[in-house]
């Protein structure tokens, strides 16, 4: 797992959460920009999971770490699935929650990683 990459991922997820929040406040449904943003974040999460699993041996709390990894990868698709059915401002609301969660969970992953690295 690479600190700079995960740091960038946290930044991107927070940016996406902000975008989604602005969309919700402007009372717009979910658009292509948010979908693309979610796709980029999901791609980055998959890369992060790949990097982390390759060296998971050095993490002490391995079960928790893998749980968080799996969780982050599952969240964006779930947000798309659940947000797509809602063509109001609350669709982006769901995405804001999801993106913020991804940012927090990536932060926890970094903590767990650095505790032993």
């Amino acid at each position: 797992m690479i600190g700079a990459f995960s740091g960038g991922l946290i930044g991107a997820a927070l940016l996406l959460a902000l975008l989604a929040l602005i969309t919700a406040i402007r009372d717009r449904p979910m658009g292509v920009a948010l979908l693309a943003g979610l796709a980029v974040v999901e791609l980055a999460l998959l890369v992060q999971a790949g990097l982390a699993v390759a060296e998971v041996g050095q993490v002490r709390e391995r079960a928790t770490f893998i749980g968080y990894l799996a969780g982050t990868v599952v969240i964006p698709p779930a947000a798309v699935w659940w947000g797509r059915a809602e063509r109001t401002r609350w669709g982006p609301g769901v995405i804001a929650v999801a993106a913020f969660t991804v940012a927090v969970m990536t932060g926890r992953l970094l903590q767990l990683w650095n505790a032993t690295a």
Partner: protein
Amino acid sequence: MNPGESADRAVRSGPGRMLVAVYGVFALAASARAAVQIATKFDEAPLAYLLSAFAAAVYIVLTVALARGARRPAVAACVVELAGVLIVGTLSLVDARAFPHATVWSGYGGGYGFVPLVLPVIGLVWLLRRRRPGS
């Protein structure tokens, strides 16, 4: 149709959908955490970890009930959740030694930004406020 029995679209659409998203996250986080705690170090604090598992179960029930628009189970689960946060939160402050290991509900959910305390209140407001116009 009986408004209390039917699956209610008004519960799960609009703001309700966001509520489901937040509860879904908590269900996922709480059950993963409880599973790890019970699987790896159950002997250290059986009570705390069983409480974690119970909290996770409540979150799962709430997520499913809200997502399916089942109002009555959702209200019941919200009440259980609120009671759990208040009881466990108070006990963890009064008798810290009984709760040496944190659960989701310790210190009124302070470890999770007090979301566990605020969430059931928002949930109840949402569920009960929407009851009037329909009935």
